């Protein structure tokens, strides 16, 4: 069963941040949400995470209304938010530890550490890692929870271009393997099109969905696809919306 966002609005005091949004997200899809600064992307994602409640409307997962955070919907934020008093390994196991100290699947934790390419850094503290490494740890911390839905709020926004590209490739490859539902927020047009199976573009003031289109690019994805007609057409449409022009 999919995620249903049904006529959801969000206002902060009198300011309307989001105007009636309705979306259905299929299981196993990779939806990218693209929008300018302040258009309400984080607000929408936080409601999916259960960190905030909609002002009106409802969000359901498997028909169950989302009323709070839950480990089946894990979030990766723009900043890694690691705990500096824990080693890399313990940071990754943090969510598992919350379920009980005694039955942490350490072998899987170590497998994921290998997957993110940080073998040998198990006992490092977060402040001994680079920004890209920290963000990989944050993703690993989410992955070991085996979430149904992975919510990502500009997870690569704070990284330099080179690291960002590596991380995008890493995430794509990963998703092709685990096939969790991913909802990925970004304000980078190329990133949004390259990663997603479906592109949602939001307009601002108040936030609303302006474009909702499948991304018809083959897999595996490669940067040569940025020259394909499908890519350029989506990019043009997205650009127009971000520039605030009618579409």
């Amino acid at each position, binding site marked *: 069963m999919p995620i249903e966002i049904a006529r959801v609005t969000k206002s902060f005091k009198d300011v309307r941040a989001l105007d009636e949004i309705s979306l259905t997200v299929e299981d196993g899809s990779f939806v990218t949400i693209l929008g300018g600064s302040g258009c309400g992307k984080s607000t929408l994602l936080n409601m999916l*995470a*259960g*960190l905030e409640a909609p002002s009106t409307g409802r969000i359901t997962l498997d028909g169950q209304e989302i009323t709070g*955070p*839950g*480990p089946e*919907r*894990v*979030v990766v*934020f723009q*900043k890694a*938010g690691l*705990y*500096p*008093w824990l080693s890399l390994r313990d940071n990754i196991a*943090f*969510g598992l530890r*919350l*379920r009980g100290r005694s039955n942490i699947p350490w072998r899987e934790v170590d497998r994921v550490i290998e997957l993110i390419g940080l073998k040998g850094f198990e006992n490092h*503290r*977060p*402040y001994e890692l680079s920004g890209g490494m920290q963000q990989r740890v944050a993703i690993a*911390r989410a992955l070991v*929870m085996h979430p149904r839905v992975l*919510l990502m709020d500009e997870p690569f926004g704070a990284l330099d271009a080179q690291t960002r590209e590596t991380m995008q490739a890493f995430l794509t490859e990963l998703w092709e393997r685990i096939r969790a539902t991913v909802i990925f927020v970004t304000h980078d047009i190329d990133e949004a099109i390259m990663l997603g199976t479906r592109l949602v573009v939001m307009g601002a003031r108040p936030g609303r969905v302006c474009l909702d289109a499948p991304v018809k690019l083959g897999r595996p994805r490669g940067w040569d696809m940025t020259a394909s007609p499908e890519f350029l057409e989506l990019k043009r449409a997205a650009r127009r919306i971000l520039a605030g022009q009618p579409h």
Partner: protein
Amino acid sequence: MAKTERESVFALGARLPHASGLTTIIVLAVALALWEAASLLRLFPPVALPSPGAVWQAFVILFTIGYGGHTIWLDIGASALRVAIGFLGAVAIGVPLGLMMARVDLVFRIIDPFLQFIRPVPPLAYIPLLVVWFGIGELPKVLLILVGTIPVIIIGTISGVKATPPLRLAVARTLGATPRQIFNLVVLPSALPEIFTAMRVGIGVAWSCLVAAELIAADQGLGWLVQYAGQALQVAVVIAGIIVIGSLGYAMELVIRLVEARIVPWRGRE
């Protein structure tokens, strides 16, 4: 404020690792020379400002023959013990109390008025009360230090809890942490750096309460020594006593810093 001070000291130390130690030595040497000059020129009567040599002699006497019937080791032991117990008591009560105040609003509203009330009261003012309630033994002396120190510890603990970065909380919530887990596994460690800052400030406050505490019918202790020698106009002994108090206070702060470096190694490195 303590933080920026610390950072600036660190920045300086980082840039001039050898020079900063050298600066300290030069400053001390110049101060000593000026002091020697002032006493040689008799700018002040020798009773009021004894020469460095006279103070050195006082030191030697304090450590060998002693003053008031015992050597200074006894005073050091008595005072260090009073300060340590008073300070540790303030930490043992203040940290849990601060945590509870930060977590439970009702507790905060009950305790905070008392806290705000005792904060500006100088420790000297408690002496009559403490003597009436607890007599003239060790208990009122230790309690005076504890009461003087505890507001710093409580306030530092509360502000440490309040300063927990929201992102750390959001991460724990989305991973399914219960409020109790969030408090124990996220808020508590996040508050540690500020708790240590409070302890470093607190150990200084504890020492500054010592002289007041030893006004309570003491016959030993560094505070007692300084007062007793002062009444006898033994200014050299007073100065020697002050130097010992300052050094011990500094030494205890260094111990706290060592513990801090072990327990919160991430401090200032995020």
